[in-house]
């Protein structure tokens, strides 16, 4: 029976090629617009570390008091150096790291090559196991290296290719801001998007991954300035980088791994007791105003998904709805035009069920054709998202099997849905009327 209905559907579609092409085009365009914008939305709204994002927490401590707060009353996104160091020394989480963004210049070993500038972070050794950073060679550094401000560095695979020809460079030395650092680890591909570990001072999306990681206390001791956002409520008193460390400016990011909700609430209590201590010591003149959010909550609060991406997706879905309404109308016209044929079939004993099967197969065929066109257009669309979205966001959009699958399912599913009402009407055709009018 299926073959027969397929044959009927094919004949019917060929009988009015204009109408058929119109429906296929509408479905194709509607689906492709939705899927192209969805591919971008999916890329920017994804969880960068799904296996442990709900265990990674970002503490916030209010160093400025009520008059320095934003209108939502929240403490700043980053910590002051003083508070970050206090948290680091208390060491209350399973794993934790204070961090700040750096952009040192590197001088290649071979003379004649130009120095280059890379972005990176000064972090604690626990950063690497905490975030499951993959390593190609070597590993991160130890707590001992942290304590001794060891001149060690973890570099990216790309930097390793550029400076050491891709060989195992562990143990070799790298000249950074005029000092030599020993390579202890080479990372595998690692450029999580969005850069969840330091949203406070990085752009959310970065086409290029980070090049170097050095021990936090080494960075401080060597006077490697922070290159991320620095927010000050009052002027710094001392001069230079030392002055910044003594100030109430926020520029240090922080992340802690807390395994359970019990651990998280203990950490919250610790933050509050820390803030109360500071209040008693006269450093804070206000009641504790702390926050401890996990990564998904931070991403949500920071509004990491650009509103342009959301608006584009919504408008594209609107386009799809219009295409479907259009298809309902056209199918209605197409099916009811064959009222007399339907009448004859019904009079000869075809049950309504048979008509449903026949017309829904026809709708499915249109959907499949629309889906095929949609696949082509989605492919073209994903290739050209760079024309519409910012390069660092467009670069994240990928065409993969799941996207292709969703495209096809959406096209066929939506067309079947659109075909329901016309089919219902067609199945209700009264055989007697049609036969009479003939």
């Amino acid at each position, binding site marked *: 029976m299926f073959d027969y209905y397929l044959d009927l559907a094919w004949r019917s579609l060929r009988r009015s090629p*204009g*109408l058929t092409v*119109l429906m296929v*085009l*509408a479905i194709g*365009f*509607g689906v492709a*617009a939705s899927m192209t914008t969805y591919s971008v939305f999916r890329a920017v709204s994804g969880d960068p570390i799904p296996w442990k994002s709900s265990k990674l927490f970002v503490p916030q401590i209010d160093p400025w008091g009520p*008059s320095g707060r934003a209108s939502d009353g929240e403490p700043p996104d980053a910590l002051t150096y003083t508070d970050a160091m206090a948290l680091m020394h208390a060491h209350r989480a399973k794993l934790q790291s204070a961090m700040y963004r750096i*952009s040192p*210049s590197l*001088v290649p070993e071979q003379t004649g090559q*130009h*120095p*280059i*500038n890379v972005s990176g972070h000064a972090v604690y050794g626990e950063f690497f196991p905490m975030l499951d950073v993959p390593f190609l060679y070597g590993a991160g550094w130890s707590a001992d290296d942290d304590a001794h401000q060891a001149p060690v560095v973890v570099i990216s695979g790309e930097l390793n290719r550029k400076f050491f020809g891709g060989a195992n460079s562990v143990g070799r030395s790298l000249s950074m*801001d*005029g000092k030599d650092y020993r390579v202890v680890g080479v990372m595998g591909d690692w450029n999580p998007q969005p850069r969840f570990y330091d949203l406070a001072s990085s752009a959310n999306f970065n086409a290029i991954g980070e090049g170097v990681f050095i021990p936090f206390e080494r960075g401080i001791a060597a*006077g490697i*300035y922070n*290159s991320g956002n620095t927010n*000050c409520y*009052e*002027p*710094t*008193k001392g*001069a*230079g*980088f030392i*002055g*910044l460390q003594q100030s109430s400016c926020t520029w240090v990011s922080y992340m802690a791994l807390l395994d359970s909700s019990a651990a998280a609430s203990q950490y919250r209590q610790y933050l509050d007791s820390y803030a109360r201590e500071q209040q008693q010591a006269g450093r804070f003149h206000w009641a504790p105003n702390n926050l401890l959010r996990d990564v998904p909550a931070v991403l949500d609060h920071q509004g990491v998904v650009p*509103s*342009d991406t*959301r*608006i*584009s997706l919504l*408008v594209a879905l*609107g*386009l799809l*709805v*219009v*295409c479907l*309404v*259009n298809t*309902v*109308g*056209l199918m*209605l*016209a197409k099916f*009811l*035009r064959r009222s*007399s044929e339907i009448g004859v079939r019904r009079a000869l004993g075809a049950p309504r069920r048979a008509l449903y099967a026949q017309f829904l197969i026809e709708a499915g065929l249109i959907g499949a054709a629309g889906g095929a066109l949609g696949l082509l257009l989605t492919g073209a669309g994903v290739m050209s998202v760079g*024309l*519409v*979205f*910012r*390069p660092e966001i467009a670069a994240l959009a990928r065409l993969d099997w799941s996207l292709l699958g969703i495209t096809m399912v959406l096209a066929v599913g939506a067309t079947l849905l659109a075909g329901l009402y016309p089919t219902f*009407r067609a199945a209700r055709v009264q055989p007697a009327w049609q036969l009479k*009018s*003939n």
Partner: protein
Amino acid sequence: MQIKPILSALRQHKAGTVLIAMQIALTLAIVCNALFIIQQRLAHLSEPSGIDETHLFVVENQWVGKPSPDQLDAQIRADLSALRQLSSVQDASVSNSYPLHGGGWDDGLKLKPDQANATTEAAIYFADEHMLATLGLKLIAGRNFRADEIGHMGIRDALAPPVIVITKALAEKLFPSVDGHANAALGKTVYLMSNRTTIIGIVDQLQSQSVARWAADFAHRSVLVPLRLVSPQGTYYLIQAKPGQLDAAMHAAEPTLLAQSRKRVISDKDGLLSFAEVRAHAYDSDYGMAVLMGIVCVVLLAITAAGIVGLTSFWVGQRRRQIGVRRALGATRRDILSYFMTENLLISSGGALLGVLLAVTMNLWLVIRFEMQHLSLLYVFIGVAILLLLGQCAVLAPAMRAAQVSPVEATRTV
């Protein structure tokens, strides 16, 4: 033309009528909002920066090693004088940022030192005495910095310039005057980062460093401070080429700087940018949204038009006998044509009415959810006009085919 018979005929085609009306309503709602978004983005990206961009370019220079602030300042001054001596260069200056750059420095300005909240945020641009000439800024009151007023400061040092030059927009915010003259601010004392400073000059316009939403509150409120920022991280040389010599100047800049000292990084990728490139990058997402919304509008209108053609053709085919009867009873071709045109106008108007409601609702939602602005009624009118016209054009072909039906059809049985 009588409307009543049309309405009673439509009652026989409820589903089709409702579908066309719905499609028109949805299309109208989306097109109105899309056109409005396009207009907003185009308005945003055509905002003037206040600087003479045609022959301007930027060199992003980073320093290698750890030179002391004094060494760095001497190097910057040597670089600048070498750049200014190039035959293709009109003038050159140095800053921490520039309009449309994306990032930079902003601070609160206060009228009194003990004021709790700043009167306004403002973009801070470091400048020397060549900055006004390099950017082509128009001084509308007071004076430029003198060479002997220019100092230098490290990136984390306190910002305490004794004198500043500000923009007209900032002057009007700080010292609103009755007659609209910005001069009221000239010579006044304000507090920058709680440090006392005096306004010595006012320039007509200078956009702040970012065109993103976070900087929208102080979009044209900028402060020029008479300081060279000696930062180990980055120094931006702003260079105004002589007319017609932008390419020559851009080619000469990097070798000139490297001849001064090789202890620097000028990135191959974006170390050297013409201002046209800066502008394109700053607004690429606005431009992209405008293009996307444009494509969506065109596709939507095309599909809606095609849908109207399809359904009306079906109706014409269905009613050939009735049309034949009308023709036999004396209706002219014109009557038939205007029947279908009026029918479409009725459906479209109904759809448009619903569409206006939808458009406004959709906009309200965008306002609440995405901080968009309120839809101006003009766009609703434009949208309604476009869709009614589109409906009439789309219905024309099937209606003309209907008008060709001969009265003989009345006597035929299919």
